[in-house]
C-alpha cells in the first residue's frame, strides 16, 4: 500500500531558486528509503514538503491520505501527529531532562501520567537510553542526543519517520548505532525516509535509494541494488 504519493511536484522559493522540478515519487508502507545527492540538490526541501514545513509550488503530495499541498497552516498539526521527524541538530529542549523531552510529545495531547510514563520508558529502552532518563541533553554525547530525538519522534507511534541527516554530526561508530535503532524501528512497520550524505551507510544498509541532482530525481535504486558511486 502506498503511503506517500508525489506527482509533478515543483518547488520554487520566493528568492527565485527552484529546488525541486517535476518530481514523481511513490513510497510504500514499511519501506526504508534513503535520499541522497550533492549539497543543494533539493533533499531537505523534499522532506520539508512531506511534513509541510514547505508547500509545493505545484503538483500534489499525499501523505497517509492527507493532501499536504492543500493543508492549511492551522491544520498542519493533523499531519505532524502522524509522522515523526528527526534532525541533524537534534532540536532538544536544553532545559528539560531526557524524560521530559520525550514525554513532551505526549503531554501536549493530555495523555494520562501513567500512560506517558510507560510509553516514555518503553521508547527510551528501544533507543538504549533508559538509564539516562534524568540527564539533561547537555550531559549526553551527540549520538545519545540523537537517540533522544528519535525516541521523541516515535513516541506517538507514527507510521512515517523522516530523518534529515540524522548522522550528519556523528562519527562512524555512533552513526552505526543510530542506524541500528532506525532499522529496529523500521522492523516495527514504520516507513523511514532518511536524507543523508553518508554513502558508506547507504551502501551498507542495502535499502531503496533515491538520487537527486539539481532538483531532479536522477535515479531510483531498488532495495539492494545501490553499490555506491
Amino acid at each position, binding site marked *: 500500500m502506498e503511503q506517500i504519493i508525489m506527482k509533478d511536484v515543483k518547488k520554487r522559493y520566493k528568492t527565485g531558486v527552484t529546488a525541486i522540478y517535476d518530481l514523481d515519487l511513490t513510497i510504500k508502507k514499511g519501506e526504508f528509503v534513503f535520499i541522497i545527492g550533492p549539497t543543494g540538490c533539493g533533499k531537505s526541501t523534499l522532506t520539508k514538503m512531506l511534513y509541510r514545513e514547505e508547500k509545493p509550488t505545484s503538483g500534489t503530495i499525499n501523505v497517509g491520505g492527507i493532501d499536504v499541498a492543500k493543508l492549511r*497552516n*492551522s491544520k498542519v*498539526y493533523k499531519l505532524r501527529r*502522524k509522522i515523526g521527524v528527526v534532525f541533524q541538530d537534534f*532540536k*532538544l529542549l536544553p532545559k528539560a531532562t531526557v524524560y521530559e523531552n520525550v514525554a513532551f510529545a505526549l503531554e501536549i*495531547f493530555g495523555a494520562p501520567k501513567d500512560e506517558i510514563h510507560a510509553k516514555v520508558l518503553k521508547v527510551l529502552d528501544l533507543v538504549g537510553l533508559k538509564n539516562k532518563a534524568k540527564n539533561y541533553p547537555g550531559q549526553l554525547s551527540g549520538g545519545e542526543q540523537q537517540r533522544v530525538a528519535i525516541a521523541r519522534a516515535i513516541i506517538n507511534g507514527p507510521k512515517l519517520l523522516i530523518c534529515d541527516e540524522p548522522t550528519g554530526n556523528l562519527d562512524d561508530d555512533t552513526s552505526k548505532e543510530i542506524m541500528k535503532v532506525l532499522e529496529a524501528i523500521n522492523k516495527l512497520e514504520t516507513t523511514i525516509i532518511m536524507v543523508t550524505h553518508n554513502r558508506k551507510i547507504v551502501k551498507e544498509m542495502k535499502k531503496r535509494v533515491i538520487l537527486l541532482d539539481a532538483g531532479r530525481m536522477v535515479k531510483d535504486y531498488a532495495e539492494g541494488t545501490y553499490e555506491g558511486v
Partner: protein
Amino acid sequence: MRAFRIFARNIRDAFISVVRNISLSAASISSITITLLVVSISIILTYNVDHFATLVEKDITIVTFLDKSITPDKILEIRDAINKIDNVDSYVFNSKTQILEEMMQSSETFNNIMKDWTVEDNPLQDTYLVKVTDIKKVNEVAAKIKKIEGVSLVKYGEGIIEKLISTFDMIRQISLAIVASLVIVTTFLISNTIKLTIYSRKTEISIMRLVGASNINIKIPFIFEGLFLGIIGSIIPIIVTMYSYVAIYENFDGQMFSPFIKLVAPRPFIYLVSLILFGISVAVGMLGSWWAVRKHLKA
C-alpha cells in the same frame, strides 16, 4: 478529564517556564510594574480632576427671581412650567420670608437692618433654585425659564459658567487621552518585552509544532505565562497605589491646596483603581503573549 489534564499541564508549564526563564520574566515583570505605576498616577489624577469638576458642576444653580407682586397661585403655575422644561433635575422654592430669615441668621449686621421689616416692607423676591441634569444645557434652560410669565430675573453665573464648563471639558479630554495613550504604550512595551522572551524560545515553539501540537496547544501555555507575568507585575503598583493614596489623603486632610479642591475619598476609590490596574496588567500580559507567539506560528 483529558481537557482538565491539558489545563493543569498548561498552568504547571507556564509556572515552570516563568521560573526557568527567570531573567526574561523579570524583565517583563519590571516593565509591567513601572508602566502600571505611571498608569496608576494618571488614573488617580484624572479621576480627581473629574471629581472636582463634577462637584463644581453640581453646585451650579439657576436662581429664578419671581415678580415682587407674585400671587400664591402664580407661584404654583411657575412651578408647573419649570417642571415641564426638559433637562431640569430638581428645584426648590425659597420664599422671600425664608430668605429674609436665613440672611438675618447669617449675619448680625443683616439682623440689625432687617429685624424691623414687615412682610410688606420686605424688598426681597421669591425664588426658585433650579438644578439641571446636563450642565452644558444650563443656558437653554435658563432662557426657557426667563420666558415664563411672572419670572423677573434669572441668574446662573452666565459667562463664567460656560468658560468653566469648556475648561473642565478640555481638562477631561486631555487627561483621558493621556490615560489612553499610556495604556497603549504599556501594551506596546509589555508586548515587546514578552516578544523578546518568546523569541528566545522559538526553538521550543518549533519543536512543539514538529511533534504535532496545534496552534491552540502552543498558544495556551504562553497565554497562561502572560497571565502569571501580569499578576506578578501588578502586585507592586497595587500596593503602592493603595498605601500612598491613603497616606496622601490623610496627610492633606482630604483636600488639595484649599478646601475648595476636595480629593476623592480613598475607599472604595483605591479598590477600583487596583482592580483597573489588575485588569490592565492581566489583559496586557495575556494579549502581549498571544500576539508575540502568533508571529511564530505562521508556517
